[in-house]
């Protein structure tokens, strides 16, 4: 039997009519929010500008929106752009999937930890030129509606490249990316119960002398794998006998250090095939969360 789209859709609608639970999809709109990392590149407030990521035509989850921040100034000073987008698309009857790259991990983690329990006005999902949506007129709610968060090359634990002065020290975001600062910035365990699926690349070579353990050339496994603690550490693929393993899932890393609560390593780059860079084409470790978003953000 062949599954043509129209056939499938009719069948699904029939199933919904039969009360199989599909009807619930109709009452809400789901969105896929993409939060960039360092360097930025997309126009702030323009949720259709995917310049940071790659071709806007690429499928990357249902109703995808680009949550652009400048990728240069501090996380806290730019976080309003993330909160604005969460207010827009993730309140009322609307729900969101969130994908973030690199320092975008800090942005969504910071928003949830600091403001995830705050009172939000329900918005109408129609942003103005600044990326701010109008009120839906349906009141307020606590926090946002988020189904899960996909992270690629997450920098919530910082990067030793910032520690080593490999980046311009006058750049405000570089200060945030210092490992001690990133990890002290907010309680990373507070995600409001939302799962963070971590995707960690290991195709790093250039900075392997500075970045401990396995890395994607910018972020080491201790951060991209969501390993907790006030400082980084050396974590590797299971094939490396001389370095603690970054375990899959939510289990503590080898050596006993726990992962941040609700953080699960979904992908560990055993093949050392993925580096950090989106490369203007949804590339590197970002390609892994593209796949996951297309698979699950619907």
């Amino acid at each position, binding site marked *: 039997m062949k599954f043509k789209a129209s056939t499938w859709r009719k069948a699904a609608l029939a199933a919904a009519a039969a009360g199989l639970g599909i009807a619930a999809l109709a009452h809400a709109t789901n969105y896929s929010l993409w939060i960039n*990392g360092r360097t930025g590149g997309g126009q702030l407030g323009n949720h259709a500008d995917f310049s940071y990521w790659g071709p806007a035509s690429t499928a990357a989850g249902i109703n995808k929106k680009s949550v652009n921040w*400048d990728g240069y100034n501090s996380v806290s000073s730019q976080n309003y752009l993330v909160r604005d987008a969460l207010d827009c698309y993730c309140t009322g009857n609307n729900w969101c999937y969130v994908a973030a790259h690199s320092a975008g991990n800090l942005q969504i983690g910071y928003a949830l930890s*600091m403001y995830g329990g705050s009172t939000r006005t329900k918005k109408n999902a129609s942003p103005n030129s600044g990326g701010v949506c109008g009120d839906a007129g349906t009141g307020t709610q606590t926090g946002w509606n988020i189904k899960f968060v996909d992270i690629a090359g997450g920098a919530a634990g910082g990067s030793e490249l910032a520690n080593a002065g*490999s980046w311009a020290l006058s750049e405000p975001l570089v200060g945030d990316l210092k490992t001690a600062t990133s990890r002290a910035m907010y309680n990373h365990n507070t995600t409001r119960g939302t799962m963070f699926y971590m995707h960690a690349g290991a195709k790093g070579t250039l900075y392997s002398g500075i970045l401990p353990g396995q*890395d994607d050339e910018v972020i080491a496994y201790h951060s991209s794998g969501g390993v907790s603690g006030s400082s980084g550490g050396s974590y590797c693929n299971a094939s490396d006998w001389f370095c603690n393993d970054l375990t899959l899932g939510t289990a503590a890393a080898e050596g006993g250090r726990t992962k941040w609560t609700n953080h699960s390593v979904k992908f560990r780059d055993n093949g050392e095939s993925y580096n950090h860079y989106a490369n203007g084409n949804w590339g590197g470790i970002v390609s892994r969360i593209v796949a996951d978003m297309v698979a699950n953000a619907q």
Partner: protein
Amino acid sequence: MPNKPLGPKGPGWIAAAALLLAVGAGGTLWLADDVGKTDASSRDSTRNTLTRDSASTTKSGGSLQPRHPGMMSSRDAAADARAEAEVANNPQAQRALWSQRVERTEEILENYRNNTKYPFESRPARENADQMYPNRPVQEEGKLTNPGQKPAEGIRIRTSQERVYVAGDETVLFTVSAVDVDGNALPLTVTRAIAHDPPLNGKPSKRNSIAMPFNDEGANGDQVAGDTVASARLSPATQGFAGHAGMIRVELFLKVNEQTGFTFFDIFYTPDPPAVWSGGIREAVEAGSLNFYLKVQVRDAGRYVVTGRIDDAKGQPFALISFNNELSTGPKEIKLNLFGKLLVDEKPIFPLTLRDVDGFLLKEDTTPDRALMPRLLGKVLISRVYPLSVFSEAEWDSEERTRYLGEYGRDVESARAHLEHVRRSMKP
């Protein structure tokens, strides 16, 4: 050690692409990609004035640009479409897709249900291992290096800083030492060390830098003379940073044998507290929970984030309790809730100790993003002894939790229904 060759592992990307293509079909069945539907042309082109010059964005981000040409080939959209069409016609692929969606939605629902038995402000200590001892120094280790250069072989630099966020009269001890790959101490010289408010984002320093007398002679904070660990203590309030609300950077220029290197520490200083503790802490069993009330005098209104740690009678970490809410000016009480079901489930030995309470005013959209309240170090309150029977075993209940469990539950039902339909369709 990392990045050693592991043999041909090229199929990683192929597998990812296959998954992408496989699942893409399912997605496109339900909703076409909305790119282009948003009226980008109507966007205010002046929006960019809100940020720095876009050209500088590109330049400053240079180090993040790809260095491996050809690391990923461009995906051919036409090929994608063909592959998606093939998958859409492939019942096995559809079954695989919906099976994993069922798995994902079930995992999310189950995790949320378990994670929200207690409110987010009252959590088991085991979930917050890195939050339970906030006043321990941050210890780090890295290779001796200069910015932009290869690190020196065989020389590792160990550092510690007493804290990252600093308030009022608090001081911060910094230490640095050098070891070889086996952990043996190496002779280290701090050739120069300064503390300053660094130029950031094109803005110059507002204060003169001060010298930081790192030494291994048991002076200025160095705890043990001659132990090869050099130390210095910074007192922002008395060393030129009084009135400075923001970052202070301590920069060290190092020499180990004939190799040189650089390292730095950042701290964030609050000279004047936005609220002060006004004494008097009370506890009360209310609605089946144990609440602690801490009196404060709020000078600056806003959102306050306050966190306390709870140990059981044996001194074992038991819970992390927090407050995150708006406060107006004047005398207030901050309530830290120790949730009843958490007590019932974990059965801690009373009395409990509330210790190490810290708090700050969270400032929106600025840097630094917080103004610190004075830290309450060590024991703050020892509770009375209660029988567990006075606490409630009811799970946390809120509109937020109901909303999430409802939506997650519907996602599970929907995915299961789709999977079942696919399975039935595959039967001959």
